């Protein structure tokens, strides 16, 4: 399939922009905001900090091996404790004691590089089990490079993280797909830029929205807020010289 050129701007919709909008006093509500029993959350605010640890491991091991390591560990964790959202950083940190019981030394060591980096950079509790040879500066750099690479949810790296989690959930029987609806994750990895990959990306994003619930409690947001506040304090603003 021919690869599409990346365009700088989204095209104008080929349907009336206000189509389907419902008037509510002085507001025109678009159809998507009228879906009942639906909460909208920000991916960058409340999901990305929870899954960026996957990016660190994908960088450390490489894509294929990284997916293997992560999915095996998540499967083991879910088999032992099915009601914990093990893919979420905040849940891993909150269940550090259970983690050290369920996983053996080698398995803990396999994921330590990521969680040690977070421990050193963000001083977040529950990660004492994670050890690493990284000094604090190196750990910070590791996290920073991962955030820079994986933050764009429309780009390939982020989608490989989400795909890894979906794959892990699927092999742990936490997620099932009807025939013909399995996202073509391979297309994201090997055929990025093609129509096939774009369809797979939409599928993966839709899956992540359905399967990454946010309970809205203060505790669940604590980590995400801490993550971004620390990043904001410890790095400077940057400017693209050629931007208008």
């Amino acid at each position, binding site marked *: 399939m021919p690869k599409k050129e990346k365009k700088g701007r989204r095209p104008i919709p080929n349907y009336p922009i206000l189509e389907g909008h419902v008037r509510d006093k002085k507001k025109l509500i678009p159809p998507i905001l009228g879906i009942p029993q639906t909460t909208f959350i920000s991916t960058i605010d409340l999901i990305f900090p929870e899954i960026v640890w996957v990016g660190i491991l994908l960088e450390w091991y490489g894509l294929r091996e990284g997916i293997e390591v992560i999915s095996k560990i998540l499967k083991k964790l879910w088999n032992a404790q099915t009601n914990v959202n093990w893919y979420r950083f905040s849940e891993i940190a909150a269940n550090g004691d259970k983690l050290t019981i369920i996983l053996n030394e080698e398995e803990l060591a396999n994921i330590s590089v990521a969680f040690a980096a977070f421990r050193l950079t963000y001083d977040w509790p529950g990660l004492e089990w994670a050890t690493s040879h990284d000094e604090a500066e190196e750990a910070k750099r590791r996290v920073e490079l991962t955030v820079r690479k994986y933050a764009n949810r429309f780009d390939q790296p982020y989608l490989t993280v989400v795909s890894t989690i979906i794959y892990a959930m699927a092999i742990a029987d936490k997620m099932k797909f009807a025939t013909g609806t399995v996202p073509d994750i391979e297309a994201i990895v090997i055929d990025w830029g093609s129509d096939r990959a774009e369809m797979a990306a939409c599928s993966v994003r839709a899956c992540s929205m359905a399967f990454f619930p946010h309970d809205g409690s203060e505790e669940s947001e604590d980590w995400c807020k801490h993550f971004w506040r620390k990043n904001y304090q410890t790095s400077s603003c940057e*400017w693209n010289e050629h931007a208008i």
Partner: protein
Amino acid sequence: MSTQYDAIGRFGFRLCQNISDNLTERTADFRGGDGFETAVNSVLSTLLARQSALAIGLAESPLTWSGHIAPLVLRSMIDLLITYRWILLDPRQRSQEYISYGLGTEKLLTAHYQQKLEDGFEGADVKRIMEANMAWIESQQFQMFIAVNLGSWSGSSVRKMCDEIGDPDLYKFSYTPFSSCVHNMWNHVGKWNARTCDNPLHKQHAVGVIRDVWPIVDFVFRACKYLELVLDEFDRYYEYSSNLDTPITAFNAAVQELSEEWEKEDD
């Protein structure tokens, strides 16, 4: 560079001269219309002067020809155009309402100052303002006979006024876009005073900046256009015709000259 600078100065001066001439011709000892309808004649004449003042204010100040400042002036000019056309649908009634509203607003402001002084505020300036306001009000009507209108002066919204004058596009495509600038809304500030940080660790926050742009002559054209539309309404009502260049004609000639002088300097 100084020649180009001078060329801009001459450009602005030519336009201001044309605007001033067009106004003077229609206001200096102008006795068109019905001499009995004082309110109508006063309102139409003074609003024309106001529109001319706004146009001159813009034309003579090249540093205002940017998205930061020009829309503030232009939105006021569009507002005036809408008001002018709307008054002309029922000039006797509406010009009186327009005047009454202004007197009532000034009366309310004066009452607020009065309350401030009674509450113990010490300010000789406030007392002087009060006295000046009251003198201005009572030069026209005893304040005890003036009602204070707390709603809109027309009893209608600007959008409905535009519907009534038969020009809804004026509201949608002229008034509303510039309103964002006037009210410092995000769809203005987010373009003219925002720069997106490229650090992904900062979640693409916007940082305040003043966009630096070269003066945009099109804003001056807009000012000439909205002035000319009011002149047209004035001339139509009073069945008046002038031999002077219209503001747009003057603009086209002036911008042609500016362009030639500019290119000469570049060469």
